[in-house]
């Protein structure tokens, strides 16, 4: 962060006065409240939690894990080193230390030489479509307010995904954009799986009665 040019501004009286005024502004300000607790909650939130919830929850988790695994196999920065594959548990850090391996969502360990982006194979697309259908069916079981929140979250994730793809079209080698893009695919799948898990007890009760 240096070497910005003032394009001849500083030499003028007005330019110098403006520079002096800008230099007096504080570059830091503490937020009105401590944001760390909310951030920490997000960090602690494992991408996919394999909570025991009966066969439906298990099926949803397995499907999500398979998809996340497929995603992670497609995740790699241009330099080929560590990726942003999700930190999914306490052992993730240690796994990342293994040469050529990176921790992935769901606790899988993956080769670091996979490529980036959404998987494009038919099996992945079919599994993803199935999970999305389940998501749509189960969403109706949730309270309207919750449905609205989930749909808003999904819209946000998809908008971010679209924005990132547009940005990548201009800067296809940006490691940061690639990582953020991968995280949007993952967040979408996690959202689907989360709804499936949450509604599994309801489905089970319906099945029993």
């Amino acid at each position: 962060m240096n070497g910005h040019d003032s394009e001849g501004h500083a030499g003028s009286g007005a330019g110098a006065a403006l520079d002096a005024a800008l230099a007096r502004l504080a570059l830091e300000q503490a937020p009105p409240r401590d944001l760390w607790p909310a951030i920490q909650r997000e960090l602690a939130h494992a991408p996919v939690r394999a909570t025991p919830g009966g066969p439906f929850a298990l099926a949803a988790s397995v499907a999500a894990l398979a998809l996340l695994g497929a995603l992670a196999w497609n995740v790699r920065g241009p330099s080929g080193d560590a990726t942003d594959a999700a930190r999914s548990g306490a052992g993730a850090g240690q796994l990342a230390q293994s040469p050529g391996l990176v921790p992935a969502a769901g606790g899988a360990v993956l080769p670091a030489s996979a490529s980036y982006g959404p998987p494009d194979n038919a099996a992945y697309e079919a599994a993803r479509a199935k999970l999305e259908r389940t998501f749509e069916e189960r969403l109706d079981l949730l309270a309207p307010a919750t449905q609205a929140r989930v749909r808003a979250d999904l819209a946000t994730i998809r908008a971010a995904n679209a924005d990132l793809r547009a940005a990548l079209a201009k800067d296809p080698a940006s490691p940061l954009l690639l990582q953020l893009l991968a995280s949007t695919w993952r967040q979408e799948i996690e959202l689907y799986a989360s709804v499936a898990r949450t509604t599994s007890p309801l489905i089970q009760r319906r099945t029993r009665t």
Partner: protein
Amino acid sequence: MTLRSPGDAVLGRALQGDTRAFEQLYRLHVGRIYALCLRLTGQPALAEDCTQECFIAAWRALPGFEQRSGFGTWLHRIAVHAVLNQRRRRGARLLADAASLDEEGMDLHAAPDGHGTADLEAALARLPAGARDVLVLVGLYGHTHEEAAQMLDIAVGTSKAQLHRGRRLLATQLGLAGEDA
């Protein structure tokens, strides 16, 4: 990656998944990130959201951080991205409309020897978003035009033009002599 300073050691621990180390990084950088977000969004609540989003995204992307740039610069990139995302999601009206600014929340602390900084902050907030973004990043936080252009997804020439425009508008608003600022 060669770790040298105590700060590097904290970063190294965070890279290995240590959330306490990441909290230290958060404490170290949050003031600068929040102030940046506040100046770019003009709204304290949005600035808080963007700051949170920035650190969460940074945690997720941390394994890919290669230290080719400083951690602070890298965080700035993520923060700007968070602001741009917020702007797209909520619509430019929320951010571009100076009348909606929360004056109290925008009361950024002046440096101890500051004079008329409240006027300057208000004038900055009234700038068109494009000019304000570049002026804040380049003129205030010292990023190069290349860095600002990359963060804002604009051409380097556009960044230079927006800086010139922003300075001229700011000088006019502040009543500084001439418009060659």
